[in-house]
């Protein structure tokens, strides 16, 4: 069955609250700032808002239900997306359907997390039951160790080298130097990348994201509403979402995108060649490389050759993670799952400023989330195209 289009519902008002490495502020504080900023952009008061979608790891003991009272919101649509790196796309596609169906007028999608000293370690220690039973007791390397295993298997299977992953990290740092909110401000050379201290072989320091605090947000509303408010917006041309794909693969060398990619392009009525920029979920470079393959930019196993053949910077022939991605901007918890989508919204609406890709009309954003045990469980992707007023 053909998927119904998201006609009439649009994404708008992308907002980033600048990240901080450590902050004493709570998730509530970061989410409030994201919400306030996104409403300000649309010229809306909190009283006018009737929909709210939240992603956060550090709200405990609250849930988004508690946030409605804490933030004084009287709303008729409340969603919580606990999908880590897949949260942004998942929040957008759910909100768009609800707006399209008339269940809600405007949904503020917000992701934000706190990062106090030691809070990352404590977040890890209660991440999932399978992790508690079958991962932590084995060296407690955190996600670094999980992704080291995936990277090790990928390198062995497809002949990728550390330098191939380095190309992704180095290009993203180049992009990040243009992006004012990136936590990483210094250039990164390939020599530095290769000489970095090992974290969990073959993963080294510059393969890892830096946990931090921050928030990202955008609004979903009817197209006529966006026009009435004079907002540039993006249409949601196609989306996919998949959880626990390929459970029989002994190790993750592909993600759920590979299951659904044809549907994604069919729904958006375009192909990989029509994409002007790609935002992958880059908790580690190997996952970005997997997304390039699984989303059809090259065949499986050709990721290394693909990154050797392309310039991944803002001004290159294949602009990728144009704000620097999490590798260079930082990973603000669940906001990491919004970073690519928010940057893509800025790009296709011509609001990206220093990172603006020339002629960026259509972007592909993909998300990847939640190492429940030995692999990332959630995958999602969206193709968006901009309409500037």
């Amino acid at each position, binding site marked *: 069955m053909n998927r119904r289009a998201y006609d009439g519902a649009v994404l708008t008002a992308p907002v980033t609250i600048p990240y901080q490495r450590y902050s004493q502020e709570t998730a509530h504080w970061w989410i409030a700032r994201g919400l306030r900023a996104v409403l300000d952009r649309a010229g809306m008061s909190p009283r006018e808002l009737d929909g709210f979608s939240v992603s956060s790891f550090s709200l405990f003991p609250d849930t988004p239900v508690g946030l409605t009272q804490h933030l004084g919101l009287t709303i008729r649509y409340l969603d919580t997306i606990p999908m880590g790196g897949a949260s942004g796309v998942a929040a957008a596609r759910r909100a768009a359907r609800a707006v399209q169906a008339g269940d809600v007028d405007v949904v503020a999608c917000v992701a934000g997390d706190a990062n106090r000293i030691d809070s*990352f*370690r404590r977040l*890890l*220690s209660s991440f999932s*039951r*399978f992790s*508690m*039973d*079958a*991962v*932590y*007791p*084995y*060296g*407690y*390397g*955190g996600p*670094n*160790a999980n992704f*080291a*295993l*995936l990277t*090790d*298997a990928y390198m*062995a299977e497809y002949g990728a080298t550390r330098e191939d992953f380095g190309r992704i990290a180095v290009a993203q740092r180049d992009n990040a130097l243009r992006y004012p909110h990136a936590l990483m401000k210094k250039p990164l050379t390939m020599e530095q990348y290769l000489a970095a*201290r*090992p*974290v*969990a*072989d*073959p*993963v080294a320091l510059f393969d890892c994201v830096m946990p931090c605090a921050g928030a990202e947000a955008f609004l979903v509303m009817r197209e006529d509403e966006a026009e009435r408010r004079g907002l540039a917006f993006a249409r949601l041309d196609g989306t996919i979402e998949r959880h626990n794909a390929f*459970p029989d693969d*002994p*190790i993750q060398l592909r993600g759920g995108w590979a299951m659904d990619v044809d549907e994604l392009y069919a729904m958006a009525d375009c192909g990989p060649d029509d994409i002007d920029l790609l935002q992958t979920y880059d908790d580690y470079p190997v996952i970005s490389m997997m997304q390039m393959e699984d989303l059809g930019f090259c065949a499986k196993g050709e990721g290394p050759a693909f990154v050797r053949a392309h310039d991944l910077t803002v001004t290159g022939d294949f602009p990728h993670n144009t704000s620097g991605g999490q590798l260079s901007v930082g990973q603000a918890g669940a906001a990491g799952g919004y970073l690519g989508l928010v940057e893509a919204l800025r790009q296709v609406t011509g609001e990206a400023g220093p990172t603006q890709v020339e002629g960026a009309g259509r972007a592909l954003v993909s998300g990847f989330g939640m190492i429940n*045990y*030995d692999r990332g469980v959630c995958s999602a992707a969206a193709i968006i195209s901009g309409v500037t007023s």
Partner: protein
Amino acid sequence: MSTPLEAPKKKDPQKRSTVPTLPPLGRSRAALGLTVAAAEGRFALQHCAECGTVQYPPRDACGHCLSCDLVWRDTETGGVVIAETRIHASPDPYFRERLPWRMGTVKLDAGPIALAHLHGDVARGDRVRLALHLDKAAQGVIVALPVERTDAMEDDPLMRSLTAHPRHRRVLITDARAPVTLPLIQALQKAGAAHVFVGEAESWRRWPGRDAIAALENVSIMPLDVTDADSLQSLAGEIGGKTDILVNTARFVRPGGVLGSDTVFARDEMEVNVLGLMRLAQAFGPSMAARTADGANSAAAFVNILSAHALSPDPAFGAFAASQAAARSLSQTLRAEFHQSGLRMMNVYVGPIDDEWHQPLPPPKVAPQALARSIVEGLVEGREEVFCGDVARDLAERWRHDPGILERELTGGGA
């Protein structure tokens, strides 16, 4: 091959002993099945009773057919390492002290994928033998081992952390007169024990066999009476700081049921077998528990020998069986207390021993040499529940299956 472990140098008394830390302790209820199997040295995983799918990590419903009928069963141990890493950074204090730490992804022949500790002699692409071991937090963990024995494989730092191997360790055996003591000294020395202290009660009383023990090298006979707290405290003051493994062989046993027996014997059984264990633990437990991270000759295990009838009594030894049940209960509390330090509480369950007090009983009876072998094997493998001999194994099996039926069988029912 692993690097053979060198004998540790004499300890600098001015240096602070490393404070023991533990690897992550939390587990779901389902995962405790791994710990139970590891304590007994079995490799057991959950099997779906309906579709047969083998499950890992442990769970509450079958990942294939959603049946909630999951049963722990011994499982084939083969697998292949499909990815490996060497972790150089960890926020966990236990692993931070032991970096770099190797682990890997193993595809089990039985089906599931397991993240596992890697023995130093295995790498990506290797076929491995999987085993469950208790880690320092006394939780079951999966270890990928070489299929064939490799040189000094038990000296791999990972294995040292998962076992109570006697090599380079100093052992206290509490009762020199017990028939098991001499073969146990020999088995421990063969396994590389550095020194064996042997306790002797009422040293003014002559007994055969003393000369044979006294003549052994690296063995010291020390005054020790488990019924005398003062003697224990004074001995602990002398050797408590260098007792790495303690094996309690003290035992008082008299045949007889309850109605016709003398409570004086029953009192002695309680004094030696129950309160003796408690006094020993009070005298030696705290100093051992403080030394579980003290290098190659760190404190590793407190071993208690129990009659298998601790599980269900033999009416011919009624009061003795009661003392064994009480001692088992005490050992379980001690185990909980020791686990906070990483010290292991090993119970060795044994059937009738071939000694004077079981002389009229028919075979099978356990030879003292066989009991000694079981104790050393339990230490080498790092177990906490060891069943020595056919009688003990059979009794434990029946007890696990149905304690009620076992009681009736032992007390005269069933043909």
